[in-house]
């Protein structure tokens, strides 16, 4: 076989690998949209489920997912940012920072169900929060922590060291340098990465399974200590636990569609932020 053909087939294989990714994503979206779109209407978005979830909507699950994602963000974004600032700006390259980095890597590899059970033990029982928005949000927050720390650190690394040195050489303290000359440039990148982590968390089932998600609630959560309905868990029930699965199948697809749209919307925010950020950097 000539070298030219070798190259041709090599590139074809690589291109194929790329196209498979595209195909999988579009097939999933096509499948969900085609089977779920017909069940989506205003009532579906704005009403609670009725008649054993065979009718009505998923409003409480949308609200619940929104609330729990907000709590997740409140836990994971500041902790992740502060942790990243410490690691990238202050920590000496020693045993402690190696240990922290190892912990972050391993934390990222812990299965989500283990996080769920950990959340039960720590937040539900030990802190006595009970199954609640706050227990679930904290659990998800810890789960996304590796993502927010890593993303924030990457964002800090993109700030040229010359900006730090220039500021320090003018007699600024480290903190002044970080506050006025590093963070303003890093925060958009930090936000982008963190939002992608949150989008992932919004779709998780296992960590909220025992920490606060409810099978069915007739009312919306009224405090952080209430249980809540959530889209991924609701979908899980409709798809596998319902007594009449074939009847609720269209509702399950519609729920999946809402969840996917929600996650894509969150990702879109991150993308818009990134584009804006990139432009800002280039113009200047």
């Amino acid at each position, binding site marked *: 076989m000539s070298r030219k053909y070798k190259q041709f087939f090599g590139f074809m294989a690589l291109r194929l690998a790329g196209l498979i990714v595209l195909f999988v994503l579009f097939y999933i979206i096509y499948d969900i949209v085609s089977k779920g779109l017909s069940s989506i209407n205003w009532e579906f978005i704005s009403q609670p489920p009725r008649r054993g979830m065979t009718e009505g909507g998923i409003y409480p699950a949308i609200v619940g997912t929104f609330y729990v994602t907000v709590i997740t963000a409140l836990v994971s974004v500041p902790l992740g940012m502060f942790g990243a600032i410490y690691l990238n700006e202050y920590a000496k390259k020693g045993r402690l920072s190696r240990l922290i980095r190892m912990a972050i890597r391993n934390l990222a590899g812990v299965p989500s169900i283990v996080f769920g059970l950990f959340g039960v033990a720590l937040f539900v029982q030990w802190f006595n929060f009970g199954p609640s928005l706050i227990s679930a949000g904290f659990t998800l927050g810890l789960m996304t922590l590796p993502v927010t720390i890593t993303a924030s650190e990457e964002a800090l690394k993109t700030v040229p060291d*010359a900006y730090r040195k220039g500021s320090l050489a*003018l*007699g600024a303290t480290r903190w002044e340098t970080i506050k006025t000359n590093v963070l303003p440039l890093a925060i958009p990148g930090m936000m982008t990465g963190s939002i992608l982590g949150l989008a992932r968390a919004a779709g998780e089932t296992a960590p909220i399974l025992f920490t606060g998600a409810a099978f069915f609630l007739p009312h919306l959560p009224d405090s952080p200590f209430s249980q809540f309905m959530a889209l991924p868990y609701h979908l899980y029930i409709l798809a596998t636990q319902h007594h009449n699965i074939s009847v609720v199948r269209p509702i399950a697809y519609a729920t999946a569609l809402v969840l996917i749209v929600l996650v894509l919307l969150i990702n879109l925010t991150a993308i818009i932020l990134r584009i804006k950020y990139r432009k800002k950097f280039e113009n200047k």
Partner: protein
Amino acid sequence: MNNKTKVKVENLNCFYDDFQALKDINMEIKSKEITALIGPSGCGKSTFLRCLNRMNDLIEGARIEGIVCIDDYDIYQNGTDVVSLRKKVGMVFQQPNPFPKSIYDNIAYGPRIHGIKDRSRLNEIVEKSLKNSALWEEVKDRLDTSALDLSGGQQQRLCIARALAVEPDILLMDEPASALDPVATSRIEDLMKDLAENYTIVIVTHNMQQAARISDRTGFFLMGELIEFDRTETIFEKPAQQKTEDYITGRFG
């Protein structure tokens, strides 16, 4: 010229972990003169420069022994306020490093962190600093535009203005013109000569002609040692050491 001593370095040793970057350096830098440090790459001249405003503190594994006195105050003694030291000893880097802010905010950065908030006072400082760095005429109508839009030579003069804005006594310059074209280089050199009337300047340079053109005294570093330090004419015309002569005549390095 018999100016008084501004910086007195005694038995200075600097280590990066196990590597000794500076060996027993002794040097007196005179007030309001330009002192040039020359030598091949890795000879320790930049390390020496960073010892003078303690920027080496930022390098992990760096360790310093010996005495560096500025105005008879040892800057390595315990309790030295590094912030006010760096305010007094400004630094300009090899690559122009304007902050991604407006020209105005770049110059006002230093004064602001040192507590000056009054707008008219800041205006004065910005104007004066830009005039002193010979940049005012070129940028006075666009102070609010990004400093990154300036040319390389303008950026470097901006960085000099930024350093001047905190009113230092000493300016350390680490190859300030090596990233610039010849025209911009000659402007920086003229500027340095002007600045030497009011400031003590220490410049690291790879360019021996530059050292010969602008400096009053020249120090030749080789492998962490200060081989020779004397008046610039002496160094370039009749150096005492064979190694110095070999270097300036281009026989090595």
